[in-house]
């Protein structure tokens, strides 16, 4: 690959990771290309000009150009969402216990009245699951309110987390079946891990979805 193209590709990756928007990346790259080509015409290659730390240079350049960053902040997002999941699970469990008597009355029905098992399962499992989703979404929305596009992120989470729950539940049940529905600590830990991994994936996807840039949007700050 041409050294200039290679350098620009490295810078592009650094800018993406730094949360620089597409329009700004294009403007920065166009200017940098001109300068690198000027230097190359004088016999100085990008490596000689920039040294080895091209990503560091790219980040400094973006910061000095004053571009608006749209950093994913995935670590903070996932940590906050996990706290929200824990809060939601605790709240859901508490409310579930509180309503247990009511649920018992509702579903200890007179003989002859047959409630579909799907409805019972949906209520028993869906109720706490709704609290988990609500906890994660609300915690992210409130605690990370200073992040750009957090509202869109929370909205995307509100859509993707339930869908993920619907998909991952049978997967987890299939895993439990392979262990003979074991209640041993490793088996339960693995099942929890499967669910959390799926929810984390959905959260990351929601963030990227919220930060996506439709073509033609955004004004270059560095032009």
């Amino acid at each position: 690959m041409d050294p200039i193209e290679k350098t620009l590709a490295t810078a592009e990756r650094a800018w993406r990771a730094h949360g620089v928007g597409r329009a700004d990346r294009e403007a920065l790259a166009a200017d940098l290309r001109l300068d690198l080509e000027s230097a190359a015409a004088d016999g100085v290659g990008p490596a000689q000009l920039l040294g080895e730390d091209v990503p560091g240079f790219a980040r400094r350049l973006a910061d000095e150009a004053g571009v608006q960053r749209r950093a994913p902040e995935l670590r903070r997002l996932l940590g906050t969402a996990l706290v929200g999941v824990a809060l939601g699970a605790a709240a859901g469990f508490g409310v579930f216990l509180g309503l247990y008597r009511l649920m018992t009355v509702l579903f200890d029905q007179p003989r002859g009245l047959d409630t579909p098992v799907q409805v019972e399962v949906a209520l028993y499992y869906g109720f706490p699951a709704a609290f988990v989703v609500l906890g994660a979404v609300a915690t992210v929305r409130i605690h990370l309110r200073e992040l750009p596009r957090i509202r869109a992120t929370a909205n995307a989470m509100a859509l993707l987390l339930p869908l993920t729950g619907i998909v991952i539940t049978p997967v987890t049940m299939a895993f439990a079946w392979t262990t003979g529905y074991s209640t041993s600590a490793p088996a339960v830990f693995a099942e929890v891990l499967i669910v959390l991994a799926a929810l984390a994936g959905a959260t990351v996807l929601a963030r990227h979805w919220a930060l996506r840039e439709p073509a033609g949007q955004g004004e270059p700050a560095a032009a």
Partner: protein
Amino acid sequence: MIANGGDDAERQTQLLRGALDMCLLALLAREPAHGYELVRRVEAAGFDAVGYGTVYPLLTRMRRLGLVADEMQASPAGPARKVYAVTDAGRSRLLAWHQQWTRFVGVVDALMPNAVPDSPRS
């Protein structure tokens, strides 16, 4: 080269950090230049520890602040180049920075007499 040794180089870097933008503006005020050319001028002025990786982002910041403006110029040899020149706002800022620098150096110089031991005599 101005700085020799690790400590000297570090101190030189620290001193330059507060004055490099002024030096770049001064160099561009003499004659417009493209980014890489400006790095060469900085080196020729005696700051050879300042690389392109430092100068170019700073130049970008000065453009954002309206202290320099750029325009494309055809080159007799090689590709077209984006040439940077100091704006009126940049000249005003350069004048203010230089006055501030002169006052600063004056204060430092005033502290030096009788504070620095005489050089060893041979």
